């Protein structure tokens, strides 16, 4: 019973991490978003192309690279649209201090006139590691169903 309770608590902590991750991006709290990653982790946006019949990586950066890229975000000319994540954690498989999780997500975009539309849809495929009692991403992958993304953003998804 104690073991089952610990598993439930771990699962809830992982689902909580996934929800908080989305909220950090919506708030553009990028430094806080980075603290959700383990030291040797990476972030990726993956997609597929039926035209070249191949999977693709649209963005893959280590935590260190992310730090530099995100620190420069405000230097760019950027899409002024506001993005909002809708995330549904689906499953988490826990094995000691390691875990895998899958979540479904969609992101809406609201333009400067207040029009909202669906921006992208896909799923997060995450590997997690528990360090000092806290679940962090070893890898956080946004695997897109959407292939036509417009307008582009300088932020992670």
């Amino acid at each position, binding site marked *: 019973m104690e073991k089952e309770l610990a598993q439930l608590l771990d699962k809830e902590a992982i689902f909580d991490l996934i929800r908080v991750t989305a909220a950090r991006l919506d708030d553009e709290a990028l430094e806080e978003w980075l603290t959700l990653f383990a030291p040797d982790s990476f972030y990726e946006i993956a997609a597929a192309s039926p035209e070249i019949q191949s999977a693709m990586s*649209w963005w893959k950066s280590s935590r260190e690279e992310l730090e530099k890229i995100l620190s420069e975000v405000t230097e760019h000319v950027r899409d002024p649209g506001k993005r909002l994540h809708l995330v549904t954690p689906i499953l988490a498989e826990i094995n000691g201090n390691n875990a895998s999780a899958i979540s479904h997500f969609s992101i809406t975009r609201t333009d400067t006139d207040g029009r909202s539309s669906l921006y992208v849809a896909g799923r997060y495929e995450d590997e997690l590691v528990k360090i000092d009692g806290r679940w962090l991403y070893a890898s956080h992958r946004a695997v897109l169903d959407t292939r036509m993304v417009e307008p582009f953003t300088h932020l992670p998804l």
Partner: protein
Amino acid sequence: MAVSAGSEIPDLPETHYLDNRIYFDQEIYSQEQSDVFAKVWLFVCHESELAQPGDFRTTLAAGKPVVIVRGQDDVIRTFYNICRHRASPVVRSDAGNATEFQCFYHLWTYGLDGACTGITKPAGYKAVNLDRSKLGLIPIRTETIAGLVFICLNEDAPDLKTFLGDIMDPLMDPLGGEPLDVFHFHKADIATNWKLWQDNNSERYHSMLHVINRKTQPWVKGKTSPMKLRLGENGHSGYWSDGVAEVDYAAGGYAGVSSGILPGLRENEMRVINLFPDTMVNIRSNVIRIDRMVPISPGCTRIEWWGLGLRDVSEEVRSERLRHHNMFWGPAGRNLGEDIIAVEEQWAAMSADVVRYSILAREEELNPTDDANLRAYYQEWGRLTGRAPNAPFDAV
């Protein structure tokens, strides 16, 4: 101080300004499909996408559906992707491999060479002696250069080599020296006129828009540079250096992205060509980006982006060039998003028709921010459409 009205004709040579209505007028847009896109050679894909007999790709050219296929005889051919029976599409997927093409509607069948090889229930046509040998898929001229596959809907146009002139010369080694593969393809429908994307790809003045270019390309802010504009025939242009002009990745803190350099290139070298009317090939050391524009309406353009590199390289090199590609040109890249925002907001403001004219008047002895290549492009546009780019509604 007197301020001129936006509709006042600029006090400039006629070649040095454009009437902005060429970017949003429906009649001009429609004419471009027939008098530009249907008249010249158009890039459609890389031959590595058609590596095996039976490999095919579908796309639109001049608004028409086409299928490009490598035959059993290894010849790359193109056909209108339209069945001769009732004009349904014969191929319904973006890419794949086929031994024959069969229309899904009434199951007429075609060989990879376009010949009509089967008509279902043929006895029904006996009374009228329907001759299937005359009912093959309609062919389109197809030629390749340095691995790039081009098609031309115009039977009377000169061959591809004549159309391109010598503009491809600096790309022959990087594109044709060793086998390449396509590692990236994506597309987006953006709210702008197709020519504004070609302008953005051609003029270097806008490099100042990009923070990453300001940091890494010394010639963006400088007056002179070994990087020079090159004016080709038929509206084509380019941008490369005969001397040393390196992208200074380290200055931006982005070093370590250039291994696996393409044949004939120096380390950290850039070469760009802009092919009339709708294609850009942009090379940075180890990675090639190709843009192709598919006009959807005056204010909507489908842009297709390819990323290519050497096929026979290590995983380490692949990973490095992917980072290089995605950093600048990926869908979430540093430069591409800025360019899209620029041309979308430009088109929206331009369509208000308050500022009637665009100024293409920079003369800098072909230094990168000279407008000479834009002027040459629009001269060719004017020749094909029969309209003066600066006065497109005046009687010709």
